[in-house]
């Protein structure tokens, strides 16, 4: 699988650069923390309804993702390295590398933010393992569908709110599914398997479609 091994080379390169600059990660983390603290202040000591807590968690993760995930393509574009990369790599490995990088970034964010959220909002989890699955799949889906949107935004040559505007409709089914699944896991009211399956299918479809469409964004 040359696509995967070359994609991994791009993933390693991005991780190495990110490790040295911490630009995207600090943007993600700061955004998530500020929103989390703001929400927690606003809520105070009140215990939230499971549906509301689930929605808040995903709103925080969504906006944090929007703040940080476009960085990976915009940086290549701004630094002028995009030409060097384009000449060296086919679009598919580039997509795979960037996708893996974004997934890694969001995973490492979720590992910190989700437990903190549960503690600050006083939320108990009725189904811990399904909850883990919902978070993992939801985060992977967020990163997956955002990656191609990030590429579009970088090519469009504009900064600012375009990322959120373009990503929102595409991520909406995922967010609704993840909120629905998280609510179930918090409250423990019914089976969660259908939600997990839904998230899994969304991930698969987003990945397949992105791989198919990405060459049109990357090459001109």
């Amino acid at each position: 699988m040359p696509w995967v091994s070359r994609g991994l080379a791009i993933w390693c390169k991005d991780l190495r650069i990110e490790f040295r600059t911490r630009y995207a990660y600090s943007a993600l983390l700061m955004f998530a923390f500020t929103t989390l603290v703001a929400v927690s202040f606003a809520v105070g000591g009140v215990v939230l309804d499971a549906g509301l807590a689930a929605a808040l968690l995903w709103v925080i993760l969504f906006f944090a993702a929007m703040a940080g995930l476009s960085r990976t393509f915009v940086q290549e574009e701004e630094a002028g390295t995009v030409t060097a990369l384009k000449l060296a790599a086919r679009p598919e490995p580039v997509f795979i590398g960037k996708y893996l990088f974004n997934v890694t970034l969001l995973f490492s964010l979720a590992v910190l933010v989700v437990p903190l959220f549960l503690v600050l909002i006083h939320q108990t989890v009725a189904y811990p393992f399904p909850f883990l699955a919902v978070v993992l799949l939801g985060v992977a889906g967020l990163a997956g569908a955002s990656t191609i949107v990030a590429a579009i935004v970088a090519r469009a040559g504009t900064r600012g709110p375009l990322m959120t505007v373009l990503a929102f409709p595409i991520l909406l089914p995922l967010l609704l599914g993840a909120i629905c699944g998280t609510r179930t896991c918090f409250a423990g009211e019914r089976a969660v398997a259908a939600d997990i399956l839904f998230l899994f299918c969304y991930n698969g479809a987003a990945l397949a479609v992105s791989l198919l469409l990405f060459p049109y964004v990357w090459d001109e």
Partner: protein
Amino acid sequence: MQTKVVLKKLTKAYGRRRLFADISVTIPGRSVFVLHGPNGAGKTTLLRIICGLVPATSGEVEITVDGKLLAREESREHIGLVSPELELYGELSAVENLEFFAGVRGLPFSPAKARDLLTFVGLAGRGRDLVGTYSSGMKQRLKYAYALLHEPQILVLDEPTSNLDETGVAVVAEIIRRQKDRGIVIMATNEPGEVSYGDQTLALGQPGTGHLVQGPAH
């Protein structure tokens, strides 16, 4: 070992403004092709079209390597580009840059090979420094290492000696000489000394058309 680049009626227009039109050239193997002309004549754009980075408005670029006509995706494996618009990763060291580009091209990489290449372009001993700390001339030298890493048949140079000192210019002359023995050099420059390398030269800038001139016989 037949290698050639054929430009067929290439035209590039931005909206209604035509940059150049109907450029048709055959660049045979073992030759140097030079583009020159005033700023804004479309030299860089033409090079980018040849590299497959920008689509032409009409016309085609046909690249044949070893007698085989290449599809556009394949051509990037045989092209090395040095250009002011191309940058390498400033957060990585020179060796890490080369390691990454070897990896992404699916080529084997050894530190010894990187060292040889860096020594050749005059960056011996600086391979472990971050590229972000390099001077612009050193960055230019590193771009040659990037372009030659996969031993391409076609070397495309945009302003080959910009930011380079005398030894750098000599290295570039050596690179062009070696590349000519192996394949094709296509370059855009306005330095009179470099224009004279050309087996064929093309002057861009006359509205709508270009002049093709056969260079000194060789």
